[in-house]
């Protein structure tokens, strides 16, 4: 970096001023009120108090919705995985060597990932009506986005040496993929598939918020009747399902992928059992949700409803920006259009969503820092039981989706953006605490040992041997979390926690599909832009850390 000292100082001051202004504006945007904050916190704990003990008396009524949720999750993961296979193949630089193919496919992949899960649900409700199939559709896209994104990242990082060895034997392209690439990629794919299945249960539990049935609906009903004890029972049931899937999924994955030590006979037995079991589960879900190919085709045909909901606002935006004439778009009575009536409001609400995400991420970043350090016993000298205990803290927090937390906070802090900030903040602490701990686990011990060998004190070792390895990674992770939190903040309004989601929910309730379209047109470009910027900054941070 060339640059004179005063210039650097100027940029530093200017940057700090910008940060201060941004945070001030964010606090303004969420109507932060320090005076009432203390009493609201008291309310929150009072509210939690009213939920215990959980009321399991109607447990038998929960079983059916729970099964429906589980079935939606399974079908969504399965169909999403199917859909992701061509994306992974054609979006991979190693498999498809033509940039003309893999770049557009990658862009499509990013676009699919951009849309928050609940927005897919809204879209499918627009197309298919309030039907469990809309839930399956939303989960399919959600799963496809995550599996294809994560697996392509693994594909970019696979070891190229074995691929070269297979090439050197004179194998054909297909054989190189089959023997050089597939064995390396399959574990990652399976890994992400099981992870998505677990995520799907959580997500399908909140799909009830937009009217899509399943266990989420039960929860909302309980809350509407102010039956908090029953609401807690429902949450615990969802939580139990997630934990069970997690446990079984990890077992299956470990045996499938790392079962090299097993005897061949038992390996074959286990693999057959898994495959047969999965097929049976898929068929069971398929028939139980009364899906059929015909219904899916009908559903796809009605997706054009979504199209028209999007097209009209686009036309209006073009007309207002003066570009309409170029495309020959004429709008009668422009004051009455959706864009004229709601355009500004939508932008202000999106601004509030950004503020919610920024403040929520900041809170979690600050708190997850010590949580991550303390959860790893490596190098930090934390006794093992303490480290494991702290790890469980972030695991427990992370189990509750933002939306569920948002409902709790909205009930005690009032409907509004503050509930959103706290929900995002708390959930992100769980996620970042866990990932920070994983970063700490991966510290290179050579550098630490080199400092210890010089006779440095513990704090010095930390400052010069550990912190420099951690800081860029932590910050990169925080920025990445901001990306995710923006998606969450955009939809949290659905449960009354402020931001553009509130407008979206109102639009959906009044079946004003054009306004739904307008909300999407505001959310998607903002999310894409922030994703793009964040990816660049993160790359700078990590690579800069490596080269300096």
């Amino acid at each position, binding site marked *: 970096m060339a640059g004179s000292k005063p210039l650097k100082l100027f940029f530093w001051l200017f940057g700090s001023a910008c940060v201060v202004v941004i945070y001030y504006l964010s606090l303004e945007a969420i109507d932060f009120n320090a005076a009432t904050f203390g009493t609201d916190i008291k309310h929150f704990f009072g509210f939690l108090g009213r939920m215990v003990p959980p009321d399991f008396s109607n447990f038998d009524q929960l079983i059916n919705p729970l099964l429906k949720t589980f079935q939606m999750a399974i079908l969504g993961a399965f169909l999403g995985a199917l859909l992701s296979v061509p994306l992974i193949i054609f979006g991979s630089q190693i498999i498809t060597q033509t940039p003309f193919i893999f770049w557009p496919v990658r862009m499509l992949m990013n676009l699919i990932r951009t849309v928050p899960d609940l927005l897919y649900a809204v879209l499918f409700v627009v197309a298919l009506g309030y039907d469990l199939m809309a839930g399956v559709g939303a989960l399919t896209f959600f799963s496809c986005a995550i599996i294809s994104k994560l697996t392509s990242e693994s594909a970019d990082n696979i070891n*190229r*040496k*074995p691929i*070269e*060895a*297979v*090439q*050197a*034997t*004179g*194998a*054909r392209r*297909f*054989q190189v993929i*089959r*023997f*050089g690439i597939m*064995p*390396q990629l*399959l*574990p990652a794919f399976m890994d992400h598939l099981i992870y998505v299945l677990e995520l799907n249960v959580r997500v399908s539990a909140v799909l009830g918020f937009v009217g899509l049935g399943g266990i989420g609906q039960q929860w909302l009903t309980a809350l509407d009747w102010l039956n908090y004890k029953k609401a807690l029972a429902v949450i615990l049931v969802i939580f139990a399902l997630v934990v069970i899937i997690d446990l079984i999924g990890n077992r299956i994955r470990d045996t499938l992928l790392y079962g*090299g030590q097993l005897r*061949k006979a038992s390996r074959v037995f286990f693999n057959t059992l898994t495959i047969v079991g999965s097929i049976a589960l898929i068929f069971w879900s398929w028939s139980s949700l009364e899906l059929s190919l015909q219904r899916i085709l009908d559903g796809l045909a009605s997706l054009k409803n979504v199209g028209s909901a999007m097209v009209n606002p686009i036309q209006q935006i073009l007309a207002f920006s003066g570009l309409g004439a170029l495309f020959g778009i004429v709008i009668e009575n422009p004051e009455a259009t959706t864009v004229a009536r709601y355009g500004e409001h939508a932008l202000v609400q999106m601004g509030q969503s950004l503020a919610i995400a920024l403040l929520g991420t900041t809170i979690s970043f600050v708190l997850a820092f010590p949580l991550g350090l303390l959860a790893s016993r490596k190098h930090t000298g934390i006794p093992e039981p303490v480290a494991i205990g702290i790890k469980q803290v972030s695991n427990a927090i992370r189990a509750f989706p933002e939306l569920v937390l948002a409902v709790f906070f909205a009930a005690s802090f009032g409907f509004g953006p503050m509930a959103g900030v706290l929900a995002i903040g708390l959930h992100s602490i769980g996620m970042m605490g866990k990932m920070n701990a994983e970063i700490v686990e991966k510290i290179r011990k050579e550098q630490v040992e080199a400092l210890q060998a010089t006779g440095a004190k513990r704090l010095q070792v930390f400052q010069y041997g550990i912190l420099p390895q951690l800081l860029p990674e932590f910050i990169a992770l925080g920025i990445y979390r901001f990306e995710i939190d923006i998606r969450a903040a955009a939809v949290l309004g659905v449960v009354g926690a402020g931001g553009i989601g509130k407008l979206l929910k109102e639009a959906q309730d009044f079946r004003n599909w054009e306004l739904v379209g307008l909300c999407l047109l505001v959310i998607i470009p903002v999310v894409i832009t922030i994703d793009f910027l964040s990816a660049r900054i993160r790359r700078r941070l990590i690579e800069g850390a490596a080269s300096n």
Partner: protein
Amino acid sequence: MTKPILSIKNLSVIYPSAKGAKALDNVSVEINQGEFVVIAGVSGSGKSTLLRCINRLAENDRAQITGSVVFGSIDVLNASSAQLRQIRSHIGFIFQEYNVVERLPILTNALTGTLSLTGFWRSLFSAFKQSDKVLAHHALMRVGINETRHTDRASNLSGGQKQRVGIARALLQKPKIILADEPVASLDPITANVVMNIFKKINEEEGITTIVTLHDPVLTFKYGKRIIGMKQGKLIYDKPISAINRETFEEDIYGRIETT
């Protein structure tokens, strides 16, 4: 005089990342049927690039290759991709990092050597011919891997054992020539000798032409029957072992070692 199995003429290579510096500079050499050649030189002298040009693996690193490589009677550098696969199937290539697919069983790793003769459906379901499997077992046992281990995953092997799997893979190609790129550089001295002895035996028993690159002068002397020296992309030395002056050998190839 018989025709050489491999003849390289005026071969030059530039990597775009190296800003015009030549990785190989006008190298010409002929290798005859049945020879055991060691290419010696420090790292970065162009040994690997030379080997990787013979089956055009160097193109994976975007190398720009000029000159000519003739293998048998085929012009390698102008071969179509189908011809290139044909050529590669006759060349057994051994890598420094072994390049085994760790998650596949040892047997399957060896069997990848038969892929050029295996059809679409058999490859898709990893259903290799019984006769090939028998050959694979034999090849693995020949390089010293017990039959009890053949269905284990390759990730459970030590470095020296992985390299043996790499050799078995090459043997299954029934190669006319074996190219080994620093095959023992990642191994301890004892294991290195064991692996080098395998190459020596294959060369002596089956007459398969073998070219090995080594950076270690001791091993170079011990196993080479003809020694080629390379320095900064140029071929600077080429003598049969009988004609080598051991006193000046190291200085001839590696250059005078500056001591201050």
